[in-house]
């Protein structure tokens, strides 16, 4: 049970309400970190500050960011979903096969969304009504789903036709479709969080589940729905992923789940729930994308890629920790 420490508080420092709110935004430190990094890269790395390159970076993080936006809601509600790698793979499999047999993009998308949502619901039921800790339940489904994809799709070669790739390839309005999809999801989540009862209830449940229960909020149902959301987003991410690469690979999106979680926590969402914003996962994902891009641009050997990434993640995380300590906040 989370009980606040009853340490007597000092007289509050004079700070305007707005300044305090800006400072207490969960995404502020990572945003500052990202801006500084981008400024440094613009100066030091030729070829970084071109529109095409930046567009490329966002395109590449689109899949992670789309999933992270939804998993962010799961985390905000106080749960976690580490099955997203396999979920994206199985949704890709569904999308690919429907696209192959029926053609088009919308019908496969619907199929992938339904498949993702259904599996997300299973995750949700297990973690809420089944009382299996979500980290275990979703590790379990991650194993199961990957096994199924490998068995069903391992030997299958799927080359998608151009009209089935419209969610990840091409730029009909001058902006790559995957960026449009990402932006749409971001706006949808933003609307969900700020203007719907469900969206606010997620914060309530994650921030204080006991009080939420006492208020009569259906906490199980709310959490379950966030898992469904996560599943549906995996369906969408699968459509974008397949659109981008054009072929189905049974090992696709392996390890995606940790990238997603990394994006979420890097962006400043509290891993135990209740605190964070929709900007967080996007910033986190873009941060990782920018770092990887800068490494390739600077022709850093692949051997150092993970080292630099790890050191920067640690730096960003430490920065947040030090900030919290200085401002006297608790995690």
């Amino acid at each position, binding site marked *: 049970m989370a009980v606040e420490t009853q340490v007597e508080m000092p007289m509050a420092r004079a700070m305007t309400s707005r300044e305090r709110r800006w400072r207490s935004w969960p995404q502020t430190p990572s945003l500052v970190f990202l801006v500084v990094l981008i400024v440094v890269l613009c100066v030091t790395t030729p070829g970084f500050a071109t529109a095409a390159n930046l567009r490329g970076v966002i395109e590449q993080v689109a899949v992670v960011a789309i999933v992270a936006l939804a998993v962010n809601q799961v985390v905000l509600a106080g749960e976690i979903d580490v099955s997203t790698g396999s979920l994206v793979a199985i949704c890709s499999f569904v999308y690919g096969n429907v696209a192959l047999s029926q053609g088009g993009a919308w019908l496969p998308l619907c199929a992938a969304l339904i498949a993702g949502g259904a599996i997300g619901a299973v995750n949700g039921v297990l973690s809420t009504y089944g009382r299996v800790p979500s980290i275990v339940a979703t590790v379990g489904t991650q194993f199961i789903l990957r096994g199924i994809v490998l068995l069903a*799709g391992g030997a299958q070669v799927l080359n998608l036709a151009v009209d089935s790739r419209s969610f990840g390839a091409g730029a009909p309005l001058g902006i790559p479709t995957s960026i449009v999809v990402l932006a749409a999801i971001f706006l949808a989540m933003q609307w969900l969080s700020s203007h719907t009862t469900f969206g606010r209830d997620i914060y309530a449940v994650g921030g204080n589940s006991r009080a939420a229960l006492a208020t009569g909020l259906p906490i199980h149902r709310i959490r379950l729905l966030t898992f469904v959301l996560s599943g549906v987003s995996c369906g969408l991410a699968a459509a974008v992923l397949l659109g981008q690469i054009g072929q189905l690979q049974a090992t*696709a999106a392996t390890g995606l789940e940790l990238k997603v979680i990394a994006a979420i926590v890097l962006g400043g969402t509290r891993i135990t729930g209740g605190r964070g914003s929709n900007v967080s996962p996007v910033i986190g994902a873009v941060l990782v994308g920018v770092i990887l891009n800068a490494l390739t*641009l600077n*022709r850093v050997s692949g051997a150092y890629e993970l080292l630099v990434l790890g050191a920067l993640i640690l730096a960003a995380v430490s920065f947040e920790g030090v900030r919290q300590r200085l401002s006297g906040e608790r995690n």
Partner: protein
Amino acid sequence: MGTWIRAVIVGSTLALLSACGQSTGSAPTNAVVGMLAKFTSDPYFVAANKGAEEAGRELGLTVEFNGPVDANVAAQADIIDRWVRRRVAAIAVSANDPNALAPALKRAAAAGIKTMSWDADVAPDARPVFLSQASFEGMGKTLVEMMVRSAGTAAGDFLIITAVLTAPNQNRWIEEIRKYAAATYPQMRIAAVLPGDEDLEKSKNVALNYLQANPGTKGVFCVTGIATPGVLEAVKQLGLTGKVAVTGLGVPSLIRPYLKDGSLEEAALWNPVDIGYAAMYIVNAQLKGTLSPQSGYVAAGRLGKLRFIANDIVLLGEPLIFTKDNVDQFEF
């Protein structure tokens, strides 16, 4: 936990153990061949398994195909150990690491199990024979020559997209590419070697980032079949088709659309069905005791006679080169 429960558990475990101790003596299942892939559920290895089963039917061998789900070398060692415990007749491996499987294979040999390697070799002292799909030198030469044909030039900067940095086969090919290029085309400069981690998306992104910053690159070698379609997608997306040449290893079914639309001119690979097929013939010869390097050949069913290129290496043949004209003939 109550003490009595503990007692019951310990007792029943012991009873079970002693009861099953008697069944140890049962005869080992004969003529089961363990066919170990780098990972299962990959079109390449599934095709190899198909070939192995075909040969198995011809030779009366039971082929048991297995491998880790990812390129995990410890899991490969585990699977070999289990086969050893089961006393299968023979084990044929494609190794994720040349040395890591050596101890397990030596244990197998000590238990009287025939061992061999195919596709990706293990340390020479851990197996009597290796079935090589193509010689490393030959592969290096083929790749460079294909590149020169596709790019129309040998002068300039070239990029290599590899699997993972630890991949032994890929590292040998890269070495041979550098060696052959240095000897034959001194103006060819390998500007960077980047890993695509056997992941289509990652391979695409790596190529995308690199080519974005270095559009003057003349060509990209893909030394793993999985990277090729990804790199082609990247080149296409940047509108560099025709300016940046792509070539390398390619699984026909994966590269067919790119060969057809002209973004890829040539790619090379051996026939994975054949390599599985040939591996079983070699195993069969080992089991029968008829494998003889001195003869210089080993009979391999429909493939005819395969040549020993060293005392312990059998060569499958020259790599196949796929173009838009011949690609439809291959069913893998």
